[in-house]
């Protein structure tokens, strides 16, 4: 985990470079991609610049704001190729506030849920309360939620407790889960990666009536003590966000056991991974194998 200190809340700028490389053993004649190639603007984040570089040269790149307000890109490559490389380079200014947990504690889990249902924007609440494909709220999820998000527990305390519980109860291990892993699989195996932990947090929040959304983005990492940070060593990241009765969202990272700070860069948000998958594609090819390489660098920029 990454430890959190007061310094982590100071405003700063990052350059985020995210390069995805697909390699095939035969020509791909046509390729369509859909991805989030520009970070969205949020109350804690301003996009200073953004460059998208695609090779081979696409016939068409177009951008629109999707249902969730994310910057969604459509890419059409009609040049036969065996390697497709999509590179996004963004400069963002980030300033996350320290969450006032005591203020959240004026509600309990139950009263917060009730208040949100009564006064929240109905579409926003409904979107983030209903189960989604990867966040299927069944009895097992409800049971897990019930141990940490008891109705009478103060809201701030409950959110921190949930974040901590998932961090404690589950092992971080890559390669055991994938895009189809359900919460039921996860509760069984007790191991996974940040997407899985985020889905579980969302399942618990929704189970008790708290709207939860999936956030995809990046987190600045520090190299092990005494080591130099390697190029491409960072990764995309995911965490959860919960709607509070005053209309703000509080972002929690169960993978690292703390709430979000200014090291967190947001790309997009939705109901679960499927709404915000960074890049997905449909290709036409007789190639039977493909390999995917992803390199991410989150570089803190000197203050201007």
């Amino acid at each position, binding site marked *: *985990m*990454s430890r959190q200190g007061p310094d982590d809340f100071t405003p700063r700028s990052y350059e985020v470079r995210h390069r*995805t490389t*697909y390699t095939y053993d035969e020509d791909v*004649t*046509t390729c*369509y991609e859909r991805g989030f190639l520009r970070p969205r603007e949020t109350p804690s984040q301003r996009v200073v610049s953004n460059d998208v570089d695609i090779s081979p040269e696409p*016939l*068409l790149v*177009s951008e*629109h*704001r*999707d*249902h*969730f307000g994310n910057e969604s890109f*459509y890419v*059409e490559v*009609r040049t036969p190729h065996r390697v497709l490389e999509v590179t996004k380079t963004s400069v963002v200014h980030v300033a996350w506030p320290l969450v006032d947990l005591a203020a959240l504690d004026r509600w309990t889990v139950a009263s917060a849920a009730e208040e949100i249902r009564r006064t929240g*924007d*109905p*579409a926003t*609440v*409904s*979107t983030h*309360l*209903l*189960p989604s494909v990867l966040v299927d709220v069944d009895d097992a999820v409800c049971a897990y939620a019930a141990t940490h998000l008891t109705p009478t527990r103060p809201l701030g305390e409950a959110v921190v407790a949930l974040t901590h519980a998932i961090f404690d109860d589950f092992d*971080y291990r*890559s*390669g055991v889960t*994938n*895009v189809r892993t359900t919460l039921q699989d996860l509760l069984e195996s007790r191991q996974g*990666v*940040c*997407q899985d932990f985020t889905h579980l947090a969302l399942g618990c929040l929704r189970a008790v009536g708290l709207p939860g959304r999936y956030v995809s983005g990046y*987190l600045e*990492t*520090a190299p092990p003590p005494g080591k130099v940070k390697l190029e491409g060593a960072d*990764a*995309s*990241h*995911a965490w959860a966000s919960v709607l509070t009765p005053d209309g703000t969202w509080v972002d929690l990272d169960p*993978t*690292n056991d703390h709430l979000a700070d200014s090291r967190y860069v947001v790309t997009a948000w939705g109901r679960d*991974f499927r*709404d915000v*998958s*960074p*890049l*997905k*594609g*449909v*290709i*036409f*090819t*007789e*190639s039977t194998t493909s390999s*995917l390489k*992803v390199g*991410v660098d989150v570089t803190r920029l000197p203050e201007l």
Partner: protein
Amino acid sequence: MSVPVSASASEDVTEGASGTGPLADYRAQVRTEGGPDEWYDASHRLRPEQHPITSAVDQLGLPGLLAARGEARRLVEDDGIRYGPGAMDDDADPGRSWVIDPLPVVIGSQEWAGLESALRQRALLLQLLHDDLYGARRLLSDRVLPADVVLGHPGFIRGADGIAHQRLVLTATDLARDADGAWAVLADKTAAPAGAGYAMANRRVTSRVLGPVHRRASLARLRGFFDTMARALGAVAGSDVDTPRVVLLSPGTGAETAFDQGFLATLLGFPLVEGDDLSVRDGRVWIRSTGRSEPVDVVLRRLDAEFCDPLELRADSQLGLPGLVESARRGTVHLANPLGSGVLENPGLTPYLPALSRRLLGEDLALPSATTWWCGEPAELSHVLAHLDTLVVKPISRGAVVAARFGWDLSSAERDDLRREISARPWAWVGQEPIAMSTAPVVTPTGLTPGRFVLRTFGVAHADEHHVMPGGLGRVNTSAASLLVSNASGALAKDVWVLTDEPSGLRGWASRDPATQPALVRLQRRAAVAPRVADNLFWVGRYAERAEGIARLLRVADDLAEDHAQRPDTPGAATMAVMVAAGARLTGLAPQPGMSPSDHIRAMVGTPQQVGTLAHTGHRIVAAAENVRDQLSQDIWHVLSRLARTLATPAPTDVPLRQQLDVVLESLLAVAGVVHESMVRDQTWGFLDGGVRVERAQHTVALLRATLAVERAPITDGQVTESVLEACESILTHRRRTASGEGPAWPIHSATSLLLVDPGNPRSVAFQVARLGKALRLAADDDLVERAEALGASLADLDLVDVCAGDRAELRDVLATVETTLRAISADLTARHFSRKPTQRVLLGDWAGAGRP
């Protein structure tokens, strides 16, 4: 009302239920079934507007009704009207026939006018609702409509959110009568409404079965509705597109309603396409074609929204088109109906429609629905859970599971399970009061029986108007005790006659106001031919020709077997053996050990399941034709269904095979006639005739190789030559020429001249090659045209005396060369013009790379 009947005659009929006959029997049954009836009013008197039909029933009596029923079934089979999963897939079950009850349901003009205006209001309401749900969503933020009922419905397509100018062009509404006889809505069909094609097919069958009644009745015609639909779909492209190109996107011939889709495409004059026929380039949809690619302006979508685009919707869909949603978003293509229109089929919206109507239209809702409780509201949930035994319970979206459950049919354990299911996801369920539903008569062997009746109406939005088809798709179940009326559960279809006060037939034709309607149908450009379509046309031609060639050969062989099988070691028997062996070569079906020649010939006729047989080839013609239903004349279907029937089962062994083969050949000649006389000589014709020519040339060459290219005793050789000429339909010319001394003296020279090089004989290889050249020119492939012409020239240069000299090795060489050349042309044609898209693969996002510091 101008029902052409006098008041006194109507009285007679009412009183004339004299206690006998189908009408009286039906009346007695209706009295005991309860609920309204389409024929008899509450005091058990015949409704006067039913007179056109009921008087006919009186005249026909049960024998006449059963004859009409039989005739309807025969016509359904002839027209190939089918319904059901895998209906046209040749590997699956042969597909359920559509079953039409011959008696239409009649609706009077006044009642219809009221229904029509209520349906117009409903369509407008649904459009406004759609606009809001995919726009500002004020209805949700103002809490007029619970957000869960909309956002929890899988028909709410987030990927379609924000796409501008989405017109709900097509609507369909399932209606039934309540206890008072008033119409109530059972369901709205807005996603990709099916059935308008079936309605027209029902009308065609019913009007033929009840010809005189149909002609006398003053009823609205349906044709005009389809013209309006075609115009409306074209208009969706926007006013800046002069000649909009509209396609009907189908999931393929395996779809349940494949017939409806194909027939609708024909009625509208739009090409029927599948995902493979289209591609997205530069954010636009194009018809794939090697000749010219053509943009598509409007897609009439019969594919479920979720399957339309693997990039943005269901990633595992192989039926859709990546980039389609983006194209719609860019406005380069318009979908009818829009992708997200399925959310309006949601029965959870029903309780809110009266309030929505007042808010959005400022009017009271004219058409009631079944009283509905949406379980997403706690109070309504408890009502449903407490009254499960009296309610119809259904999920708000049709899934893989059974759509509706009748609470009173469930055991208490089943009710408990249902209660649990509902409680787990209450927003996903509704409970509805059952609607009484009217009864309508069904013709059965024992007389008329009442069944519950559901009416599906169809509407089209065009300009500022909503047009309702003056008629609809009627469906009736076979037991008035059940409220389930669905095709899947064996309901019958009924034509729906809407009476009109206007002079017969005028109503239902499109108004032709020259100011607003520049043409009956906006001009549709001849669409580019997609590879899948070209491929199927080519194979319709090839299989039809192959079947004919095999049938002719087997007929000759069978005649020989009849005459000579019992006389071994005669030249006749030797000839028979050569011809049977040739059949085996051409079909690839060697005799089983111990098989007599006659049995071997019958085995080559075979069954549709055995590859290579005549029956299989016949079956393949039908399958290939089904794939290009929109390209072929309607007349072809009854010919093809006769062919399929003839070849469905082997002829009994005590019946001469020749009878079956004669019928097969008649059908194939009829197919050739329809194709020849009804197809425009354009690219589509080029592919079809190209298939015919390649096949006939290949067949003739292969037959010659198996017969005349082998040196035999002169007496056998003479007989084999005659048999080959007969199998190639050239024996008369040969005899005439020989008799008049104008042809070559030797039979072999006459035969090779007639069958190989004679440019004037429509059965010769040279003739096929010349026609192939023309066909390839239509297909716009200059290289292949050149190669066909070169082959033609080489045939013209042959010296037959040299070629046929000695042991005929040279003839074998020539034939082998011709065959190789034809094969190469066919292979290149296939590779260049029929090639499907490469395999579509989906690359989901990066998952494993995500980590923690």
